[in-house]
């Protein structure tokens, strides 16, 4: 019998993190996606990021909708919480989970179909309410799970595997999130873990909504020649404008940088994100200019990647709505359910 499950081998080269765990402790079940799917690489990047952040897996809630991308939470962090919502409805479930327990790291995994078609409204409001979560869109320009129909992120002129051409303009989640007041907006590529892993780390530690749009080729339905979301196309037209390095709290900044080129941003927990400008004319702190830049480069056929916009100052949903500091499951019963008298007096106030 041939086995296709990844065996757990604790070999001598395996490192352990501050919790004494190996990276294998951050994996999940065996992937059932097509061999070579970009989504599996995003999974591997998430595994690596949480391992390196020393986050205990059971402190994470993985939220997703429907799609090949939305299946992937089954393949990482096997020892964490998870919820697989109906198509496009993950943001509202995540909002509820976040409101109920501020101590969990919320990690949403969605696809371009899940977020930009059926779930567009949900997605927009999650950005707007600055829900404290990392929201990853594994963007392949198609509905992979339903066999490769164009999604709302398909570019004009991009051709499907059978040859038909997309004529409708794409929705770019990055530009949308910027326009909607998103406080952390990034784009990356499944085939570039050096860029992707620090962005996942920074997004997890960011307070507020962190959008990470990851170009993640569908190797089965959208990796052919005339596709603009293939491995080859993405590699050719990807343009890195700002790199982000994630520095955990109390760790020294070791690398030497040129003054002026590096913008350190301190996060609420003491960790820092170092933004390194690659393009001189790009400013990740100017929302308007950034949108213009991304739009004009898109028109020229370029895909702009990196940590494209970041603002640590804005209040998140918890601040705006004054949610409970203590997770609801830790509140005493009397506080959660103050009884019929309390309800009656509350109702009296609205008479």
């Amino acid at each position, binding site marked *: 019998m041939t*086995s296709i499950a990844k065996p757990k081998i604790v070999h001598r080269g395996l490192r352990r993190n501050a919790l004494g765990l190996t990276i294998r402790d951050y994996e999940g079940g065996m992937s059932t996606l097509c061999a*070579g799917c970009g989504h599996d690489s995003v999974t591997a990047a998430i595994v690596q990021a949480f391992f390196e952040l020393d986050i205990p897996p059971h402190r994470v809630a993985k939220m997703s909708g429907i799609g090949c991308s939305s299946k992937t939470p089954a393949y990482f962090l096997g020892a964490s919480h998870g919820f697989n919502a109906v198509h496009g409805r993950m943001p509202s479930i995540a909002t509820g989970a976040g409101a109920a327990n501020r101590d969990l790291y919320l990690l949403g995994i969605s696809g371009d179909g899940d977020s930009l078609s059926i779930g567009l409204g949900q997605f927009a409001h999650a950005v707007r309410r600055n829900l404290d979560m990392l929201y990853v869109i594994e963007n392949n320009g198609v509905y992979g799970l339903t066999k490769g129909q164009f999604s709302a992120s398909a570019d004009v002129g991009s051709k499907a595997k059978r040859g038909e051409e997309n004529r409708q303009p794409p929705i770019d989640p990055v530009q949308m999130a910027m326009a909607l007041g998103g406080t952390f907006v990034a784009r990356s590529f499944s085939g570039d873990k050096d860029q992707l892993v620090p962005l996942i780390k920074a997004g997890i530690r960011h307070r507020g909504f962190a959008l990470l749009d990851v170009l993640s080729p569908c190797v089965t339905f959208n*990796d052919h020649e005339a596709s603009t979301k293939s491995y080859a196309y993405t590699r050719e037209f990807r343009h890195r404008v700002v790199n982000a390095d994630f520095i955990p709290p109390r760790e020294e900044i070791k690398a030497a940088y040129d003054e002026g080129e590096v913008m350190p941003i301190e996060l609420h927990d003491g960790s820092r994100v170092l933004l390194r400008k690659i393009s001189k004319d790009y400013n990740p702190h100017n929302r308007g200019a950034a949108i213009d830049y991304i739009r004009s480069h898109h028109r020229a056929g370029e895909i702009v990647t990196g940590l494209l916009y970041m603002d640590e100052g804005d209040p998140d949903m918890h601040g705006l709505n004054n949610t409970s500091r203590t997770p609801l499951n830790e509140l005493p019963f009397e506080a959660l359910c103050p009884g019929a008298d309390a309800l009656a007096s509350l109702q009296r106030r609205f008479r």
Partner: protein
Amino acid sequence: MQPTKTDGTEYFHRVVDCQWGCPAHTDVPEYIRLIAQGRFSDAYLLNRTSNVFPGILGRVCDRPCEPACRRGRVEEKPVAICRLKRVAADHRDDVTARLPRAPAQKNGKRVALVGAGCASLTVANDLMPLGYECVIFEALDKPGGLMRTNIPAFRLPAHVLDEEIAYITDMGVDLRLSTPVESMRGLLEQGFDAVFVGSGAPRGKDLDLPGRHDSDRIHIGIDWLESVAFEHVSKIGERVLIIGVGNTAMDCCRTSLRLGASDVKVMARKPRAFFKASDWELEDAEEERVEIVVNHSPKEFVVEGGKLLGMKFDRLEYDIDERGRILDSRVVDEVMIPCDDVVLAIGQDNAFPWIERDVGVEFDKWDVPVVDPVTFESTLPGVFFGGDAAFGPKNIIWAVEHGHQAAISIHRHCHGAPLTERLPRGVNLTSAKMGIHEWSYSNDFDPAARRIMPHVDLKSRFKKLNIEVELGFSAEQVATEVERCLNCDLQTVFTAEACIECDACIDICPVDCLTITPNGEQEEIEARLKTPRLEPDQPLYVSAELKQTGRVMVKDENLCVHCGLCAERCPTGAWDMQKSTLVVPYAVHELAADETGSSEETCHRARRTG
């Protein structure tokens, strides 16, 4: 770095660590798979092609393959390669009909072989099927050499030895027992077409300390073991000291226990890390309550009125650095250890009193014959050496490999062909893909620990001298142990042009041995590997530059468990699992090549049929 060359035989052969480590290049993973399928006879015959004595070696081989085995790097203990060989031998059917046979029509060439040890027997095994007339001259009245005279029957039963020697001699070897060769000149005058010297290293080292010649209770290990084997000696005193801590010492101490000794001490000059004996031999001796005493340097035999009272030793203290090397040593004090017998097991020397020094065989300054390490020819054309006689005492499997090589040389010599233009080795590769999610081998990683060999209990085993201690693996143990083998001959073969750099193989590899990285100097690449390079001696594979980014695929072979998942998850088939078969030429292939003129083809064909 330049792309790694995998087209020769070396790269893929090295990946199969056991086969690379085996002097005779036994195809270990293939015979383990045959055992797993219950094809014991096939496994036996596959073994026999390369190592000639599977039943013997499955019990007493020095097993250099095991320290080399990859499983020992992935977890703690290697696969029990040697004991699985014994499984094939123990459970085989009658294979006589499938053994090589001598042709009725001889080729008219006569070869003299001196000594009936494993080296000469291998030469006969390889030459008889080619029509040679082989005459073996043996001084003793039984064939087998040290395998019979020195390796005790409780490790190697006589019937195993008899059976496998008969497989060779029954081809019609002219075996002349009790016929020592007393003169090389005399032998040469008998007009043989070639002479092979497989007379071993028959002289046990002596220890010339005060008192050495004042008692008859001081024995030379290998001579004493021979006397025991031939039943000239059947008892020993209660307290025995064994001097030396090599494998001979282990056999001497365990034999003493079976001849009536109850207090046996093995006296070592150095600390344990410097012992010559194999770990498993030490374990077996200690299991029998032999005491191993370290840091004692022999000084004097204490003999009074012809009676051996004991031995005096200097007790030593060593300074050892972090890397485990001895920097200095000093004497702490002197002790006297009482005993009834002393057995000296401190090594062997070559001795060729029967070779006249003016006969044309050149001897070097240590009085050892000058022998070519590839052809095994001495400085006298047509006279070859092999086994312990060639480069000093080694072990059975080396003697067998010498025999194979000498047989090739003898054949070439007898046909006037240059000895150095030997057939090359080859590697055949065939894809192991059988269908979607289907590979032709058991690729699952079985985390089971090495099975422990069951032994006869500590009481019964001493009842007789020849009770074999090891019982052999049970069926359940075999079933588990075979799955521990990682199938290292199922090679990961990479096609750079097909790779789309999707990272699927990198992400799935359970031991993180793959990396895609910009090309550069070796140190730069090594610094960027996903897992640090723990064994610099293990091969590093670097691909040609990849199409999309110009980076390279790098594989550190060290820990690869050959699970095939990289190939399983590769969307383009850039990785494939391919079974490699090492093609090792023997004398029989030389013959086939003579006939067809095409060496490589016949080599491959003979391998399949032979």
